[in-house]
């Protein structure tokens, strides 16, 4: 029958070339990236039978949590389910990626990877600045990242390149923060920290292992590490109320622990006489190295799946076999081919069946498998916004509020390497279970639940909290409970849904 529809569509097109044929009959074809992801993923289901693609509600909740950091409201879920447009998923993905909220969340995900708990950045990472300048430099950087992502600027040429070349004053170049952060890096000085960060953040390589000993799993040795550090040998920063980052030209090498190192990129390139060091390095990283695309694609993948194909995401080495064979290559090639469009990468992944698969599956998945959606803990922002939206409120973009409220629930990482989320803990459970503020929010959420019958109300409640309709058994279970608990039954039902593992995970 599907063939029939396609045939009819083609035939109609052939006949008229007009749009007379009803649009909802024909789904847009998958993009090459999306097709390649799905065909590659097919070989990595393990022994499990593949789950079907998720239903609308589960899909919408997942894609919104991932892309904008909050789940859909009751109205949004209902509207999406009712929409008969066959391309509604890809249009939703486009709409989300085009939103300010996507750019905001994605900019902050990058910042988390680069600066650790970036909320602490104004305090932690720019030691030479006074507090006003710290906040300004940090805010400028995040706004700048957001702007670049929003307009889908090529990640290599307009983001990484600008970061590596950044110089000038704090009130001038907004990309400076990344290099300034190297000055906070601990005991070994900024050049060492620079070599560590540039290799981890942009190339996904833990070159630092080679600082003390030849890399245990790879070809890197101390020379590689210190020669990378040498690129920073001419960089100077001054602080106070403003900051200035500049390159001096009277330094010819980096002297470190008895050695004397000329700058050289780990893939071999060296600046010629008279070439500015930072500009040369920017070129090697952004244009000459295939590793930038690979590492970046892996990082984006990890944001959407909760785990990189190479994991941890900054640990590419010869002993690591990326999960799913050619998948990482597929993503990297496409990222390069799209001129480093982060949006195209998101779009390609989110439209795939692999991303959209239902989370339910009876198989016990102790190893990564594409048979079902990968389940993640909610991050702080997602948790707080889920509680707010589930009770009829509007998601907040006020990061500080989120931090103040939920940061005690997330044991902080001081980050040397990529953040790995901590498992759910007792403190989080107590908060959602018992916090008075949430109890109050439940009451107001309840006020918005409508329905002619109790069963209708239970359905609304499920849609509001877990973005799906209840099964018949669930409706019966909840109706029975509510009937048996006059007065408090509805509130208890709401509370129950908000404490389910379903609500507390991104699945």
């Amino acid at each position, binding site marked *: 029958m599907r063939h029939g529809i396609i045939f009819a569509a083609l035939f109609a097109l052939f006949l008229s070339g007009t749009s007379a044929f009803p649009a909802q009959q024909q789904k847009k074809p998958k993009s090459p990236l999306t097709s390649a992801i799905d065909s590659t993923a097919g070989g990595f289901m393990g022994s499990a039978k593949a789950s079907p693609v998720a239903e609308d509600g589960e899909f919408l909740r997942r894609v919104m949590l991932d892309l904008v950091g909050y789940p859909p409201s009751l109205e949004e879920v209902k509207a999406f389910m009712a929409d008969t447009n066959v391309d509604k998923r890809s249009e939703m993905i486009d709409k989300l990626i085009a939103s300010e909220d996507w750019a905001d969340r994605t900019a902050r995900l990058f910042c988390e990877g680069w600066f650790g708990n970036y909320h*602490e950045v104004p*305090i*932690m990472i720019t*030691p*030479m600045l006074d507090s006003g300048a710290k906040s300004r430099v940090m805010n400028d950087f995040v706004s700048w990242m957001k702007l670049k992502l929003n307009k889908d600027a090529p990640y290599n040429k307009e983001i990484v390149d600008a970061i590596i070349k950044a110089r000038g004053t704090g009130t001038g170049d907004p990309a400076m923060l990344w290099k300034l952060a190297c*000055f*906070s890096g*601990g*005991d070994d000085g900024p050049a060492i920290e620079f070599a560590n960060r540039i290799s981890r953040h942009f190339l996904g390589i833990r070159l630092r292992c080679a600082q003390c000993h030849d890399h245990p799993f790879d070809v890197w040795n101390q020379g590689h590490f210190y020669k990378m550090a040498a690129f920073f040998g001419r960089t100077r920063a001054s602080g106070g109320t403003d900051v200035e980052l500049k390159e001096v030209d009277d330094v010819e090498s980096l002297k470190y622990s008895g050695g004397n190192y000329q700058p050289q990129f780990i893939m071999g390139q060296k600046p010629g006489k008279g070439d500015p060091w930072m500009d040369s390095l920017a070129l090697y990283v952004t244009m000459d190295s295939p590793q930038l695309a690979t590492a970046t694609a892996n990082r984006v993948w990890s944001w959407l799946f909760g*785990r990189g194909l190479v*994991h*941890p995401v900054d*640990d590419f080495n010869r002993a*690591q076999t990326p999960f799913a064979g050619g998948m990482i290559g597929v993503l990297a090639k496409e990222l390069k081919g799209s001129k480093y469009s982060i949006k195209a990468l998101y779009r390609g992944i989110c439209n795939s069946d692999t991303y959209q698969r239902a*989370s*339910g*599956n*009876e198989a*016990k*998945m*102790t*190893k*990564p498998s594409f048979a*079902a959606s*990968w*389940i*993640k*803990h909610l991050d702080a922002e997602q948790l707080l916004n889920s509680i707010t939206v589930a009770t009829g409120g509007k998601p907040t973009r006020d990061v500080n509020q989120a931090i103040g409220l939920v940061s*005690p629930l997330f*044991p*902080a990482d*001081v*980050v*040397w*390497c*990529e953040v*790995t989320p*901590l*498992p*759910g*803990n*007792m*403190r989080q*459970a*107590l*908060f959602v*279970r*018992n916090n*008075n503020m949430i109890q109050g929010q439940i009451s107001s959420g309840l006020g918005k639940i409508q329905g002619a019958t109790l069963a209708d109300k239970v359905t609304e409640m499920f849609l509001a909290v877990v973005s799906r309709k209840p099964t018949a058994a669930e409706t019966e*279970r909840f109706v029975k409970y509510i009937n048996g608990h006059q007065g*408090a039954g509805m509130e*208890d039902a709401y*509370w*129950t849904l908000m*404490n*389910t*593992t*379903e609500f507390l*995970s991104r*699945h």
Partner: protein
Amino acid sequence: MACNNRCIVPAVGRRDFLSFSMIGMGALAGSALPALGQDYKGTQTTPQTPAEPKKETTKAGKKCNTVIRIWLPGAPSQVETFDPKPGRPNGGKAKAIDTAAKGIQISEYMPQTAKAMKHVALLRSMNFKELAHERAALLAQIGMAQSPFSGVADMGTIVAYERGPKDLQLPYSISMGATLQPGQSLPFGGEYAPYRVLNTSNPIPDSRSPVGADRDLQRTALLSEQNKDWDSQRQQGPIGQIEKAYVKAQEVMTTPQVAAFNVGQEDAAIRAMFGNDGFSQNCLVAYRLAKVGVPFIALQTGFWDMHDACITGMEKQVPSVDAGFGGLVNALAASGLLDTTLVMIGGEFGRTPSVNGGQGRDHHEYGSWAMAGGGIRGGIAFGDSGVNGTSNKDQTTVGDVWHTVFSLCGIDPKKSYIVEGRRIAYAYKDVKGAPIRGIML
């Protein structure tokens, strides 16, 4: 905080520094739950429980089952604490006083510790290989001078996991006085996550249901029923972790053990052994937590990076530490808990025997730590820094202390866990060493 050239830590503010120094501090707990390997469904880390650990007990026949670590961030001077040099050119102004242990003198700022000295072993020739704050703090706390992966367990997590009693309903790992959440327990699962007490008068926020116990029980039953179906279709790691977190939350909500935080319930005689300030009161809480069997308790107090004005700074700050530490050892001894409770105290490294122009002391590779209880032989000064504090006999290292702790607790240091695909020994190579037999019973 002025840092002179000898201080290689970047010139960050105090808060930044503390947050670095806290890494890895204080995880805690748990019990030797059976089958932790099997229990944990996560895909990235799996603790291994290979061979049954060698049963090692102290000669007193009891095994240490609680470790209390008092961390003094910034590294306090040994001269004004455990290793005074009265009358010597470098001795500063602190006098030495006699202690309950014959022949051992400590700083006059530590009278309570002096009373407890027959229980305390001093390590006066600690040799510190790391002289930068963050690396040294990491080495002491997670056994690695640099954390190469996230998810490395600290000493507390390991002790907690190996020694925690099964019937403990409080968090397995508790820290007090810390400015930042301590290290990660990832390989051991969320129930071993360190629990940081922000406010001892409300140690476990949200631990009461807002609707009362009866109604809470009813809706919790509905929740279990609802989760059962949904969860059974989803076997991935995070689901099991959330379930476990809820089990633990319910235990904490109902346990009478939470009274351990209520120091008002303690015997007047015990309370009188402690000072009234925040640190002493935290030590009193730690005493009560040890009593209910919490296996690892991390305490932190003060700021000790005294490159300037060390001489006066120590005079001001040490008495508070003394009241807490001395009080804790005395109280544990009085109630018989000291046999099975180890108390350890120290900072990142030592400070120079010489006094600089700002009346400060800089970072130094030799210094003192102290240990008491849990199978430690008290009344000993192990190691000797000589009359001027410049020579060092019978040196011990951070690694030796790790091995001593493991030995007292009956933990096999060769056991390991896997984090992000890599096997990490309980005693990582950075903390090579051997138990310090000379201070063990």
